[in-house]
């Protein structure tokens, strides 16, 4: 029972790698609470978007996580 985290762009540096597998927890808040404080703070940044299994989350979404889910943390895209 695990979920996969994906860190894009500069968040890859903050996480020390592009992805990480962690034990299943029920919510995104629980995921963040289980990470190093510096990384959790970067992932909670106001311009970081989240996608669960390739679907972008809207502001108020609080999905219940299940085994095998992939959460991607997406900083602002770099543009031109």
């Amino acid at each position, binding site marked *: 029972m695990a979920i996969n985290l*994906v860190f*894009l*762009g*500069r968040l*890859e*540096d903050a996480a020390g790698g592009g992805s990480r597998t962690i034990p299943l927890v029920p919510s995104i808040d629980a995921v963040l609470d289980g990470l190093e404080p510096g990384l959790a703070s970067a992932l909670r940044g106001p311009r970081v978007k989240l*996608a669960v*299994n*390739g679907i*972008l989350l809207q502001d108020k979404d609080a999905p219940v996580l299940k085994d095998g889910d*992939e959460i*991607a943390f*997406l*900083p*602002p*895209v*770099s*543009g*031109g």
Partner: protein
Amino acid sequence: MSDVRLLADPFDPARELAAFTAARPEAGGVVSFLGQVRAGGGVEALELQHYGPLTLPAMQDLAGRVRGRWDLDGLLVIHRSGVMMPGDPIVLVAAAARHRRDAFAAADFAMDHLKSESWFWKREKADGEWRWIEPRDQDFEDIARWG
């Protein structure tokens, strides 16, 4: 219809554009934009990172919006990911249309939206150090032109 590709390896823009044009003899005009890694300025390499579940689907969605907005005979969107060197092609957009205005507007719109909205994260290597690139205000101004 539209040909939308996300490539991890180098491509030959001249060959792609020639094939695209040859397949559309009914189009009076083809407008293309080619973006390449700029030589000079001290950038030694550029890397574009993408996220599989989002990047290509969003490019395909953009192509659909362009096709819905202008009357085109064809639309080509090719974008690289991965590590590129100065002079390497990054992006090729081509729009074929019966009317020149449609082809120009479609290619221009597609580039503005690719640059500002696409799921790519860019870093540059200079003096041996990789550095992530933050968004530019210019991109938001470009996209605002289209209402």
